[in-house]
């Protein structure tokens, strides 16, 4: 729909081919969470992948690091219309963790310390598309940004990149996670503006 607003000319004009429709460049790093920030110590941190048959694979902090940390430079896009371009992360690709996991499931539910959940197709967190991120911009990830570890799935809106991640549960059938139940799109592709149902 084309709908001109009287007097509005636009001041930002920070158009960039890397900016999906409806997004604006963020100068800072906004924080969006549904509740208080959980404090999770790396000494107590664990990450578990549970398959559809109930088999659990668990990593502690050192085990995660041992799986192989890599640098990731990527753009990120929040459903609330901000994007950041060229952000720098360090994290462990989910591919490395899934090497030991046998599954025929099509979906995963990410679970967080604090109770947050979000659902993803399994094929969209493999093949170099998703990480357990532990550093941002050269520093350990701040708790308010999901530290010590968050999911990083940059090709989807950032609510899919669950903060304070503690595990993935493989699912044969898709189910909505936390924000998906509260009206956010089930899939969340920024390039198709999949913001809300």
């Amino acid at each position: 729909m084309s709908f001109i607003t009287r007097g509005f000319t636009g001041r930002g004009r920070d158009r960039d081919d890397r900016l999906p429709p409806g997004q604006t460049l963020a100068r800072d790093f906004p924080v969006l969470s549904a509740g208080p920030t959980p404090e999770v110590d790396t000494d107590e941190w664990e990450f578990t992948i549970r398959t559809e048959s109930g088999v659990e694979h668990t990593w502690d902090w050192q085990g995660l690091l041992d799986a192989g940390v890599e640098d990731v430079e990527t753009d990120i896009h929040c459903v609330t219309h901000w994007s950041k371009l060229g952000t720098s992360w360090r994290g462990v690709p989910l591919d490395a963790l899934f090497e030991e996991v046998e599954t025929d499931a099509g979906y995963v539910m990410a679970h967080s310390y604090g109770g947050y959940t979000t659902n993803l197709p399994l094929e969209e967190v493999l093949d170099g598309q998703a990480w357990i991120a532990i550093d941002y911009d050269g520093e350990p990830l701040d708790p308010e940004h999901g530290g010590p570890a968050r999911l990083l799935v940059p090709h989807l809106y950032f609510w899919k990149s669950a903060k304070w991640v503690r595990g993935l549960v493989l699912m044969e059938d898709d189910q909505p996670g936390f924000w998906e139940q509260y009206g956010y799109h089930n899939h969340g592709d920024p390039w198709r503006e999949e913001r809300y149902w």
Partner: protein
Amino acid sequence: MIAAVPRSGWHVAAVVEASPETPSARRLVLDVPTWPGNAAGQHLDVRLTAPDGYTATRSYSIASSGPGTRVVLAVDRLPGGEVSPFLVDEVRAGDEFEVHGPLGRFFVWHPIEPGERLADASADGPRPVQLIAGGSGVVPLVAIAAAHGAAHDPTPMRLLVSVRTPEDAFFGDDLADLARASDAFSLDYAYTRRAPDGWTGHVGRLTRDEVAAVVLPADDAPLVYVCGSTGFVERVASWLIELGHDARAIRTERFGGT
């Protein structure tokens, strides 16, 4: 399986009133003929379109609720911003733009329905509600307080608003009216820069002791809604946890700097 959730959509909104709210903010009353109504605490996206097709979209909390087609916003001017200065300084009655919503079904509150009391006696029961706002973060909480008042809901509700000066308080008269009209609703202010004449309390950044003194105690198991800047919400939410509140009963809404 995917839960069936109704889709929100784009609507044309006409500005009915635009009036100063604080020295940096403006209250906008919109008429949105196709608006489906909204719950207290929800937000919407505003989309402005320039003559060459360029658009800018931002999210704003809604200060009103219910089934009507009138939607009230209060927009604070972000210096150097693209959309908020336009809405605060340029928009006038009769102008039109698009809104998308209502959005968000988590940071919401519903008054109890008539007849709900009996059923609730055996269940969890209506929970007391503590609302805590930093600056313009009060906007969605105004909608919640007003819905509580309009429903004559007897559930205890308390609102703590942190503002820089008395002039910076959003919806001050409306909230004072609500507090006068209902024994179940009470209103507290904290001033960070300058307090009104005759104020005997602390002036300065909100402290944990102040929060502890005025918020409903954790033993009452209140639902707590906190809205404000990221720093404000982070501080207050961590104090609430230290004061014994259940993290699962604390709902937060933060606005970033974009």
